[in-house]
């Protein structure tokens, strides 16, 4: 029981100023905080930003995932949080990512911009599995580039 790992997927509306510098600073802050907390808690996952939305996957033991989600819920930097998936999983999809921000490297950013432009990407149109897959593919891409 204690070993079972859960996956939580949600998306939300970003409330952060859309000015690029301020936004980058906020994201840096969120990521720094997330990585520190998540390493401590044994949480892994990925975060994505696009078109005024955040989408995030969190993986880890249920109690810490719940606690992290509660903190995230209380964060004023976003709102209208839609929880898509909360389920036990066999293995982590982001074992090496305390919290990866996907869509940052030039390559994925442009790829991602393509997705956004072509299909009017909006997380609201995806379910938890879709989002999870998109985030995982983007993460794999970034790992390959880094390697």
């Amino acid at each position: 029981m204690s070993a079972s790992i859960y996956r939580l997927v949600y998306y939300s509306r970003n409330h952060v100023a859309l000015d690029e510098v301020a936004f980058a600073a906020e994201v840096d802050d969120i990521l720094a905080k997330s990585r520190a907390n998540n390493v401590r808690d044994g949480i892994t996952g990925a975060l994505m930003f696009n078109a005024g939305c955040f989408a995030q996957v969190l993986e880890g033991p249920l109690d810490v995932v719940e606690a992290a989600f509660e903190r995230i819920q209380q964060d004023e930097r976003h709102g209208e949080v839609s929880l898509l998936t909360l389920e036990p999983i066999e293995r982590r999809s982001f074992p090496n990512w305390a919290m990866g921000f996907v869509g940052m490297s030039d390559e994925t950013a442009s790829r991602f911009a393509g997705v956004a432009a072509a299909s009017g990407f909006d997380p609201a149109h995806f379910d938890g599995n879709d989002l999870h897959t998109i985030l995982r593919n983007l993460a794999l891409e970034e790992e390959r580039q880094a390697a």
Partner: protein
Amino acid sequence: MKQDVRHNPEQAVTSSARILESLQHPVLVLDAAGELIYANATAAGSFGGWIVGLSLTDIFPDYLRSPAAGDHPTSLRLTTQKGEAFEALLSPLGEGETCVSLWPAAAVLDERTPERADDLTGLALRNPFMAALDHALAGADNRAGSLAVLCLDLDRFKVINDTLGHGIGDQLLKKVADRLRTACRREDLIARFGGDEFVILQRGITGVADAERLAARLVDLIGRTYVLNGHTVNVGVSVGVALRDAGLQSRDLLRNADLALYEAKRAGRGRYRFFEQGMDLQLHERRELEIDLRRALALKQFELAYQPFLDLSTDAVIGFEALLRWNHPVRGKVPPLSFISVAEENGLIVKIGEWVLMTACMAAASWPGDLIVAVNVSPLQFKADTLLTTVSTALERSGLAPERLELEITEGALLADTDNVLATLHSLRALGVKISMDDFGTGYSSLSYLQKFPFNKIKIDRSFVSGGGADSEAILRAVSGLGSNLGMAITAEGVETAEQLGRIREQSCTHVQGYLTGRPMAPDQVELFLQEQPIAQVTN
């Protein structure tokens, strides 16, 4: 001036009385027998008006007169009958008289010390909250709008407690408390008054805008999804807000916030409302209505009127819908729309519904042939768990054949606790009773409800009949088509003109009910009405 005072004792007395009267904290004077011989205005206001002549124990039941009052000032803690705590300083005035100065205890004690907090959430309890509110109102900052009281009530909390258990319910309350702390500032005091009732004192604000910002934030934040032990839980919160205004005491402010909360809930929950003048009047009127409604059954002020419905294939009357009427001696005929919601709010609808069922079955048993009586059943009656018994008792006592009773339910009945409701519906069906879906097209109109239970009949709301537009017609046709495919009869309600009747006939509706085919009538008119009608008698 000082010299004047010294030289004119009379004037000294009046001015010191005036000073005493103007003090913002209560001051009392006791005589040697322990009786109150003086109370300043604040004391009179705090302890219920004319208190001179009472003893100190009348006001503070926990006051034990010390054996020897002595001639030293003593300080002690006193609590009123209502549980408001005060720090008291008793100083002897000579000749056995004692002056008692009082300060709300919250002014002295930390509001958050553990024994004064709610065990589950760590929030303040009612008494310290009220003391703090008194204190804030007595404080230096007395601008209107300088403080706000917010009353909060969780929406759907009871359902969550009932379905997921108290353990999850408690966890939820803790997380709610946590979010309240996140939304509030240090200066604010948050209390839990019990259950899922929370109250916030917002201090040192500049006016409506500050209170509104907090209220909006609370509705957003508390309404966000919770994850508890792997369960996803959604609750909303309703908020009532009242701002400080000249002359308002703690109790008034709290009551105003509560009235506003009541309006927020009535407006559909999950929102905030500010107190407005007149809300108390509205509530008062609803209370009066409620009192009258409670008496109405005993005083036999209810009546049933019966409206015929026709089978379109034979154009014959095949039954009547029983419609509830309330004749109040002063109010006159009260329309159902204005009292059914009140009866549902306070649960009276269950008793009223029992009366309706019994009365309608009795009436129908006296009708000739196989005429059906249709009776409306409120979603609340399903919740009460007594519906099945009520129906079978009514059938037994009246001797009415079950096939002649038709129960009309609305989609609302299927919204919550669907499985239990379906089980009840199946048991009713097993008795032989007919079940129809009423007012179809007004609520969620989810077709899935039609799939969940094999209704005998769907009653299409009058708005689609009277509408007459292309849209209404298309919907009418779609629903009646669907109904006939599912083997359900279709009644078109509210048919008033021959032209409407003509359209209805073309659209595979099977039954019709409306002014055109017969108005609601008193029970004693039914017989005469039937004599003038060709009745489709089932021939054996």
